[in-house]
């Protein structure tokens, strides 16, 4: 007689999803609203009902933040070696090959120069879809060269982070990328070139503990997970549930480690206004 008790969930919009053409509809993970891709894109990839910010990649950020056709990618071809010949369930080299094929990206960051409301900037944007946006030698080197670009042309640096932290498969070499990116940022500071760090969902581990926290201003997207240790690890350590809103942008802002939480649709104008104020 179970069908008499059928609850709302069973005929929730979600169950219709499979009947719709593939990939046209998305369900908001926050309020469950069903949204058409076009609708989402027009609303800066955030939910029209609750403003939840969907995770997006570098390609989308370039479209949203940079002036049309202003972006020129640099160092596109750098890709990961397998310095440790790392093997877990599969070879790291194989994992890299497969991820490149799947994501059409060469590693977890895209770098280049572009314009924001007419202002030339050095622009880096991470891709969480590439092995959790993890930072290994390639991410470190691309950021390092992006900083060189910023230094050479005396243009502001903007980096959008979305990363689980340092990449395990390159061991201590990944750890050294924390040092490398931080060391290079001292050169930029010396030249008084602005650096805006934008932290998106999620930014944790070694990425937060290096360049992402070192902006002249640190900006978070609404409700993004930002922290050092992951929530699961902390929960394990303290043996208690974590408070509501722990490690969100708003929480990090409240504790003094972000300057502002800026909605995606405001981001472009916010960046150009800030750069104008300090130039």
């Amino acid at each position, binding site marked *: 007689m179970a069908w008499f008790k059928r609850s709302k969930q069973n005929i929730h919009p979600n169950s219709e999803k499979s009947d719709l053409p593939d990939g046209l509809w998305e369900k908001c993970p926050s309020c469950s609203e069903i949204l058409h891709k076009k609708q989402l894109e027009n609303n800066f990839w955030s939910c029209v009902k609750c403003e939840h910010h969907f995770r997006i990649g570098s390609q989308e950020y370039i479209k949203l933040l940079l002036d049309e056709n202003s972006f020129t990618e640099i160092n596109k071809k750098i890709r990961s070696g397998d310095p440790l010949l790392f093997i877990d369930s599969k070879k790291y080299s194989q994992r890299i090959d497969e991820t490149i094929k799947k994501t059409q990206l060469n590693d977890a960051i895209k770098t280049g120069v572009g314009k924001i409301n007419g202002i030339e900037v050095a622009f880096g944007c991470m891709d969480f879809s590439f092995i959790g946006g993890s930072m290994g030698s390639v991410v470190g080197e691309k950021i390092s060269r992006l900083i060189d670009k910023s230094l050479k042309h005396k243009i502001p640096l903007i980096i959008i982070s979305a990363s689980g932290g340092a990449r395990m498969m390159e*061991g201590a070499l990944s750890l050294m990328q924390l040092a490398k990116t931080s060391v290079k940022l001292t050169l930029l500071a010396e030249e008084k070139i602005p650096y805006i760090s934008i932290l998106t969902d999620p930014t944790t581990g070694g990425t937060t*503990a290096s360049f992402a926290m070192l902006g002249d201003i640190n900006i978070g997207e609404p409700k993004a997970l930002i922290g050092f240790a992951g929530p699961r690890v902390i929960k394990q350590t303290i043996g208690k549930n974590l408070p509501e809103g722990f490690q969100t942008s708003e929480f990090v802002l409240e504790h003094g480690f972000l300057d502002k939480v800026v909605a995606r649709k405001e981001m472009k104008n916010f960046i150009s206004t800030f750069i104008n104020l300090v130039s």
Partner: protein
Amino acid sequence: MAKTILDFEKPIIELEEKLSEMKKLSDNLNIDNEIKIIEEKVQHLKENIYKNLTRWQRVQLARHPERPYTLDYIYLMTQDFIELHGDRNFKDDKAVVGGFAKIDEYKVMIIGQQKGRDTKSNLHRNFGMMNPEGYRKALRLMKLAEKFNKPVITLLDTPGAYPGLEAEERGQAEAIARNLFEMAKLKVPIIVVIIGEGASGGALGIGLGDRILMLENSWYSVISPESCSSILWRSWEFKEQAAEALKLTAEDLIKLKIIDRIVQEPFGGAHKDHNAMALILKNVIKEELSLLIKTKPEKLIQNRVKKFSELGVYEE
């Protein structure tokens, strides 16, 4: 304190026990020949084991509870140590100790992560896991060293930065990032020594310097073998494989240019002879200092920036 015996050392201990029993009996029996044979066997076995340590066995040695810790080195290597406390903002983090001291003719600032030897002291030291105020305390001491033009020596020995709720509230990530940024441009020499466990950002947070030294049986990587195993193999059981895969020993890291020099330990590990270990390290540090203090600050920083900018392996 009861002696800790690691699993791979058991065959040696068993033979040694047998040997000492035989020695007791040798007054009445004529077994000198047998004793000699066993003695040779012990020696052979020791060499065989200690000269062919796996990576996981080195991790075990690095965590040996009788291994010398930061304060042991400070007491054995330095004179006139004055410990300084607090980050001037929040509190004094007991997981890190530091202060001015003399290493013979050299006046230095020495800072290191400190573990405890028993439950009580481990709770006091938080197992050597620093909170944000610990990184800020270390930075404060480094700035003090810079002010008085004294070189900095940091000793790394931590299972990681503390992953706690309050650590997040007080900005663990920012504290580590800030240290990396500030250490990059500190105007005095920095010598870093990994003396035990060099676990990830928690260790690196006081580990950026001009010369990176590493004790023979210490480890340094982006994650501990256990955590790596739990994430990539989804079980804690693959720590040996994870240790192999991570290439976390001094021998591995010198090949990748992540460290500059390996410091030999007494035969069988640093815990076998604290005095000998401290003397070896003291002489190495003095040698490194004698070279570094000749370098002008601008050159020092320039070299440091170059050193870390070049780290990484990639294809193009």
